[in-house]
């Protein structure tokens, strides 16, 4: 039993204001809105980067650049046969001529390859990570059986994109930390203001034998309530914005943009952010109040 236990009506009356300060829940709501958006961005980008890495980062495309269609087919078959026996190759797919024609149609018109225009044969090969690490050896082996082969490593042209995604992910994390820091600073300012406002009450409580922990608990609970209300409000608005953005992204129909999504674990993290915010705000309030009270006798 304690004066300042959780459900004590007396406790709620002890500090005169219902909340520590009027705008505090709104400040926390805005901070949480920005935090959730930044976190969602970071999580979505991480998820997209993971998707891209899983799907095509270990992929190579072999072009057999030979004008003679018979030699081109022969080299293609040899390359496919060689790769088929190679350890670390998870899939081999020769791109059908029809698909190549469709790719080239905007530039050379329909049925370009059939009209004698030499078009390279394309073979998509997926490798394991270990096999991709020894790509030089694989390239040499391919060139032995297909001297006219050119090999495009998807990881090479994905590297700048991966770098961008990585930078954006770090930026998101930095934004989350900055908004958390700003929220903590706002809490500290609110607590200091509240301590000044309630200084007389605190002194009276002290002189009657209240411990610092008892007094700190009063402020902790008030700030926790503010942080929960503000955090939940900010999170709700951020989730609405994220869902609307998701609709827009899906409407674009891009495969790359389509990979930007939030798995359920990311949603869980986003919904836990208001709780984490309330916890941080409560801890900051406790440390601030206890620090201030130590200066009093």
């Amino acid at each position: 039993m304690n004066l300042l236990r959780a459900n004590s009506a007396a406790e709620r009356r002890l500090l005169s204001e219902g909340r520590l300060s009027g705008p505090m829940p709104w400040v926390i709501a805005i901070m949480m809105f920005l935090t959730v958006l930044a976190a969602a961005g970071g999580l979505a980008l991480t998820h997209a980067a993971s998707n891209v890495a899983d799907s095509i980062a270990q992929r190579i495309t072999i072009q057999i650049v030979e004008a003679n269609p018979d030699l081109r087919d022969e080299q293609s078959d040899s390359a496919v046969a060689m790769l088929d026996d190679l350890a670390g190759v998870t899939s081999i797919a020769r791109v059908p001529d029809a698909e190549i024609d469709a790719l080239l149609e905007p530039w050379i018109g329909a049925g370009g390859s059939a009209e004698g225009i030499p078009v390279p044969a394309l073979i998509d090969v997926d490798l394991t990570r270990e096999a991709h690490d020894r790509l030089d050896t694989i390239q040499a082996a391919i060139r032995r059986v297909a001297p006219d082969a050119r090999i495009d490593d998807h990881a090479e042209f994905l590297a700048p994109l991966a770098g961008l995604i990585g930078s954006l992910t770090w930026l998101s994390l930095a934004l989350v930390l900055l908004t958390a820091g700003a929220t903590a600073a706002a809490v500290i300012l609110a607590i200091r203001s509240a301590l000044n406002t309630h200084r007389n009450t605190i002194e009276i409580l002290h002189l009657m034998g209240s411990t610092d922990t008892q007094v700190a608990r009063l402020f902790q609970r008030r700030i926790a309530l503010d942080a929960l209300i503000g955090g939940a409000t900010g999170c709700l608005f951020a989730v609405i914005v994220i869902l609307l953005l998701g609709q827009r992204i899906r409407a674009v129909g891009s495969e790359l943009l389509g990979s930007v999504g939030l798995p359920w674990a990311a949603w869980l993290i986003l919904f836990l952010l208001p709780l984490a915010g309330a916890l941080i705000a409560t801890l900051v309030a406790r440390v601030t109040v206890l620090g201030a009270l130590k200066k009093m006798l």
Partner: protein
Amino acid sequence: MAWLFRMANTIVQFENVGLRYGTGTETLSDLSFTLDSGGFYFLTGQSGAGKTSLLKLLYLALRPSRGLIRLFDEDVVTLPRGRLPGFRRRIGVVFQDFRLVPHLSAFDNIALPLRVAGVEESDLATPVNEMLAWVGLSDRSSARPATLSGGEQQRVAIARAVIGRPEILIADEPTGNVDPEMAARLLHLFDALNKLGTTIVVATHDIHLLSRVSTAQMMRLDGGRLADPTGALRHPPREPRGRRRGKSGA
């Protein structure tokens, strides 16, 4: 042996205590005295003599700049800050400016020490209502301090100070805002508490109060130093006097 006897009955001991605010001159200098458990003491002196400062040392709102203070047989000068609440709960204080919590009702103000001490809400109503009746404010229990007169606020402050049955009751000008009849009632109240074993220290300008409690001893402060006209405080008698009481009734 005489020293041991005296110490066993001592609740407050000051030895060469000095108090200085900031870098100014000493407000209190070379205070050495003892207060016996169950005693009744009036503290007098002109304005600015240091009465309130001395009371603040007694109710642990300040620490002295020098000297030794023992309270409840423990050195409170070097007492860790974390142990002060336990000592403060044994002391009741009536502040000169009442220091009621302005947004709390008279009931809640009086209940504050009990809530601090962890008394269950269900056990609060009876003692608080008794205290309200005792100070004649039963009909004002839900009134906030701003709506109470000075005298009523003072009675609430007194009720708050005594509800926890403190071992020492310290009152700073407790009759300053009440009429003579209420002043007499309050003194009667303090005397009754004293008979139950509570040590009473009352700072007052009112010289007429001194004669109303026959067993009271007087401490007079003059320029921050203790003027001890009777010598009874510095050198208390070895044998308890006629009305000296122990804490058995507490």
